[in-house]
C-alpha cells in the first residue's frame, strides 16, 4: 500500500473542518461540548490509511479523526453529536462514543481505557474465526496510565491477539501534562515489559505515520502478535470545548503549532510542485461544501421519539 499525499492532505483538512464546525456548533449552543483532535490529524489519517478493509478499529472520546479517516458519513456524525435520530447511534451516544459498525469502527468507549479492555475481545473473535483481519486500538497517553493498558497488552501478548495498539501521545491528559503522570517519555518503550515489539513515530508527519503503521500492521497481520505503536503528537486545542488552555505552556504550544501536520503536508506538496495555491483552494472549497451539506442533513434530522428512551436496552 502507498499513501497519496494529496488525498491524505484533503482528509486531514476535512477532519479539521469538521471539528472546527463542531466548535462553532458548541459555541452557538447547538451541540454539547466535544473533544477535538486538532493537531492530531496526521495520526488518524496515517494509521487508518495503513489498515485494510476487513480490519476493525476501536477508538475513544477523541474519535472524529479516526471515523472520518475511515470514511464515516459527516452528516450522520453531526447528527449524532446533535442528538438527532439519523446519527450513527440514533442520538443516544452523542459525540463521546460514536461507533459505526458499517465501516468497521466498533465498541467505542469514553471510559479512558475502556477500548483497551474491549479490543482483546474483538481480536479474540477474529482469531477464533480465522481470516487475516487485524484490530487497531487507538488510545491516549493518559489511557496508558490506567491498569487496563497493562492488562490488555499483557493478555494480547500471551494469547497472540492480532492487535495494533496505537497510542496517540499528545502530551496531555485532560488538564494534566504527561510529564506529571510518568517518568518515561515514551509509551512504546513499555513494549519490552510484555515481550512484544514497539516503535515511536513522529505523529505530525503523515507519511512517516503511514509508513510506520504499514510496517506495524503488516507485522501484526503476519505474526498475529500485538504491536505497540506510539504516535508522538500534540493536542493543539483544549481538552474539550470550551477550554482556554490557560494551563498550557505557550512556548510548547507554539513549538507544536509550527509543526501543524496540515501545514507540513501542504509545504511538502508545494515544494515538490505537486500542489499549488489554486489546487489547495479548490480542495478547501470542496471540503467546505461537504461540511455545509452534512450540516444541512443533520439539522434537518428530527430528534428521536421519546419512546426511544427505553429501546435497545436489552437484546
Amino acid at each position: 500500500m502507498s499513501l497519496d499525499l494529496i488525498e491524505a492532505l484533503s482528509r486531514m483538512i476535512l477532519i479539521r473542518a469538521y471539528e472546527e464546525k463542531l466548535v462553532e456548533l458548541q459555541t452557538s449552543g447547538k451541540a454539547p461540548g466535544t473533544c477535538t483532535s486538532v493537531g492530531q490529524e496526521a495520526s488518524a489519517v496515517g494509521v487508518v490509511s495503513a489498515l485494510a478493509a476487513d480490519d476493525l478499529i476501536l477508538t475513544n472520546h477523541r474519535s472524529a479523526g479516526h471515523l472520518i479517516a475511515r470514511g464515516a458519513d459527516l452528516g450522520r456524525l453531526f447528527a449524532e453529536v446533535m442528538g438527532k435520530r439519523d446519527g450513527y447511534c440514533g442520538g443516544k451516544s452523542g459525540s463521546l462514543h460514536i461507533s459505526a459498525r458499517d465501516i468497521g469502527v466498533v465498541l467505542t468507549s469514553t471510559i479512558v481505557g475502556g477500548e483497551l479492555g474491549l479490543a482483546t475481545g474483538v481480536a479474540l473473535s477474529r482469531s477464533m474465526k480465522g481470516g487475516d483481519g487485524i484490530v487497531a486500538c487507538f488510545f491516549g497517553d493518559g489511557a496508558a496510565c490506567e491498569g487496563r493498558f497493562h492488562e490488555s497488552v499483557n493478555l494480547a501478548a500471551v494469547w497472540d491477539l492480532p492487535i495494533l495498539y496505537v497510542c496517540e501521545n499528545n502530551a496531555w491528559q485532560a488538564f494534566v501534562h504527561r510529564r506529571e503522570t510518568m517518568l518515561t517519555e515514551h509509551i512504546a518503550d513499555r513494549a519490552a515489559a510484555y515481550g512484544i515489539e514497539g516503535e515511536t513515530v513522529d505523529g505530525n508527519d503523515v507519511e512517516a505515520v503511514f509508513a510506520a503503521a504499514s510496517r506495524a500492521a503488516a507485522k501484526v497481520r503476519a505474526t498475529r502478535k500485538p504491536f505497540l505503536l506510539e504516535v508522538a503528537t500534540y493536542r493543539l486545542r483544549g481538552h474539550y470545548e470550551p477550554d482556554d488552555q490557560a494551563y498550557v505552556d505557550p512556548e510548547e504550544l507554539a513549538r507544536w503549532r509550527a509543526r501543524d501536520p496540515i501545514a507540513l503536508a501542504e509545504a511538502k506538496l508545494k515544494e515538490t510542485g505537486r500542489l499549488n495555491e489554486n489546487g489547495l483552494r479548490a480542495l478547501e472549497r470542496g471540503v467546505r461544501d461537504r461540511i455545509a451539506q452534512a450540516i444541512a442533513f443533520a439539522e434537518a434530522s428530527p430528534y428521536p421519539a421519546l419512546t426511544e428512551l427505553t429501546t435497545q436496552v436489552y437484546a
Partner: protein
Amino acid sequence: MPQMTANDAVSRALAEEMRRDPSVMIFGEGVATKRQDLRAEFGTARVRNTPLAEGIIAGTAAGAAAMGLRPVIDLLFAPFLCYAMDEIVNSAGKLRYMSGGQFSFPMVVLSMTGAGWGVGAQHNHNNEAWFVHSPGLKVVMPSNPADFLGLLKAAIRDDNPVLFFCDMPLMFAPGEVSDREHVVPLGEASLLREGGDLTLVTYGKTVHNAVAAAAKLTADGIQTDVIDLRTLKPLDEAAILRSVRKTGRLVVVHEASRTCGVGAEIAALAAEKAFGFLRAPVLRLTGPDAPAPASFPLEQAFVPQAEAIAVAAARLVRGHTLKADTPRFATA
C-alpha cells in the same frame, strides 16, 4: 431421578451448551486447569486459563460477545467483580443502548458468594443487587442443582449479559436433576410451596431456610407460599404479586444487606401494586449492614436462619409485628 451437585450441574450445562453451539467458550483464572474435561473435549482455544486480571477478562468477554462469540467467564468470588465493574456495567450493560443497537453482549459472568466457608468479606459479599440496579444486565441466583443446570443453559443462550451467582455452600450439595434436556427460562420464579396465610419470597441459599421455616409454621397451623425467585433481573413480578394478593402478607428473606437490596425492591413492588391486598406490614429478614465475618458463629449469625424466619412470620400472621427496634437479621 439421578442426583448431582450444583457444581456438576454447572459443568454439565457448560458441556451441553458448548456441544450445541461452537461460539460458546469459557475462560478465567484456572478455568482450564480446573475443567480438564471441557479442555479435553473442546480444546485449548475454547477453554482457557487467563492472567490474573478480572477487568481484562470481563472486557475481553464483552468485546468477543459483541463480535459474535458467546463467552462464559469465571470471575471466582463476587467481591472480585469490583475489578470488572467498568467492563460489566459501562461496556456490556450500556454499549448496546449507547450504540443505538449496533451490538449485543451475549455473555455469562460466573461468581461465588455466600456464608459457609469462613473466607471473610473479600471472598463473600452478596452484591447481586448492584447489577439488578444497573441497566442492560440480567441477574440469576439459583438454589438447587436442577436450576443451576437449567438457568445456566438459559443464561448462555440469552443475548444479554447475565450475572450468574453461585451460593458457595450449595455447590457441593446433591439434588435431583433430570437426564433429559433441561432449560429454565430466565425471569420465572418457582412456587415451592403453597399456603394461604403468608408469602415468603427469597433466593439462593436462604430458599432452604425459608422452606424449613414454612414447615415449622405448618406445625403452628400457618400455611405459607414459598417463592424462589431464581432470576433477580428480570424479576417475576407477576408471580410475586399473585401470591401477595392471595395471602396479604409478605416476608422477604435474603442474605445480602438490607438497604437497597432485592428485598427492598420486592417490598416496594408490593406496597405499590398489591397495596390493597396487604393485611400486615411487609417484613425483610436480611443480612446486616456489615461485611461478612470469617468467624464461623458470626458467619452463621449473618444469615437469616429458619428459626428466625419462622418466629418473625408467626408474629406477623398473629398480628403482632416485630418491635421496630428488633434487628431483622438472624441474631434477632
